[in-house]
């Protein structure tokens, strides 16, 4: 696989996120396949590929969502910093690291949405949003990570050096 294939995968994920994923509800939230795919890609494959895919995914998602173009890119940008965590080797398991990053990236992504609501003059109920949106979104994304990570790992024979788990 290459970055070009990654871009194709991201484009398909963006279409799926806009069209299909909102129909899935896990504990009241729908999973975000874009975050999950980017985390799995960064955990399994080369960091430089992930660095290219993150803004590309944000840009494509911005074209297909109702928010101002660039907001999705802004919400995904913290993932760029998180790609360095793999190099630090805090934990040997790439999957465990991916789970932690997915949880954190989901939290940041939804928080950007909440802050945007607050900045645009709305009064979001932070406690209710945390209970009904943030926590379910984290659980939904971590659950979705497992199959997506598996697919990316199996399709990455060219760069795979370490075991999946």
């Amino acid at each position, binding site marked *: 696989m290459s970055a070009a294939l990654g871009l194709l995968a991201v484009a398909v994920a963006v279409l799926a996120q806009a069209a299909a994923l909102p129909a899935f509800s896990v504990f009241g939230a729908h999973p975000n396949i874009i975050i999950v795919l980017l985390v799995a890609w960064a955990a399994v494959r080369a960091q430089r590929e992930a660095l290219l895919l993150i803004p590309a995914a944000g840009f494509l998602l911005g074209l297909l969502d109702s928010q101002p173009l660039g907001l999705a890119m802004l919400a995904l940008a*913290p993932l760029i910093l998180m790609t360095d965590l793999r190099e630090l080797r805090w934990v040997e398991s790439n999957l465990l690291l991916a789970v932690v990053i997915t949880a954190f990236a989901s939290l940041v992504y939804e928080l950007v949405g909440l802050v945007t609501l607050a900045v645009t003059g709305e009064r979001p109920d932070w406690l209710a949003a945390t209970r009904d949106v943030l926590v379910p979104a984290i659980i939904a994304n971590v659950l979705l990570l497992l199959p997506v990570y598996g697919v990316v790992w199996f399709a990455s024979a060219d760069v795979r050096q370490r075991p999946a788990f």
Partner: protein
Amino acid sequence: MHVRTRTWFSVVIIVSLALVGASRFAFFAPLENAALLVAAPVESALRDATRPVADFVNNLTDINRLSRENQQLREEIEQLRRENALLREEQTELLQYRQLLDIRDARTEDTFIAADVFAREPSNLRDVIAIDRGSADGVREGMVVLTQQGSLVGSVSRALNDAAWVTLITDPTSAVSALIQESRAQGVVVGAADGTLTMEFVEETADVKEGDLVLTSGLGGSHPPGELIGQVVEVERAAQELFQAVRVQPLADLSRLEAVLVLASFLPQEATAP
């Protein structure tokens, strides 16, 4: 942390903010319109293909709520059947009166633009849908959107050339002036991040019961009066509170919308004012 990563992060943040800034002036509207136009058929096909899988997964994670809801629905069906029989009798009488008096149906003066829903805002915090009709078809920002059965869905928040975004009444940014049909108590129906509806500012002394219908009041001029919003499912009266909290359930299942009607004959007051 690598310098390369930090630099790239800074570049992406700057580009993102520049794009957000440019979007405020609709700079990218043609590009977004073209992207939605190209993606719409693919998204529609994806929606249709994944719907059965989504239903299966949702049922698995929602089994308790579903069995409770099933019981409630059984009881409700029984009650509705009884009411239906009575209403049929009344309807027959009413039709006879109408024919006699030649009363025109109020809805015949309204014009609608039928549209298919092809996408939904991916964020968990927003309830916004994309429809396949835009300003080229006569859709304007602020127009009211209804289900095919006639209950309120939301209003057009952004009209591109060939597509439009509709903010649903369950969106946290939505606020609709409303009244309870039976008691005529007024309030504002607002959405929340978890997709529920609450009617706020209902006076503590107002007589509100579970099952009461909630309609648009027309106050403020953003919605025509008399559009059906939903049904009261819970009333909370707290001592020493000026207002009661009324939970409202939309009549339509807004999470499964496939086709909607844009009410083209009504424009909100801001849009029609000189």
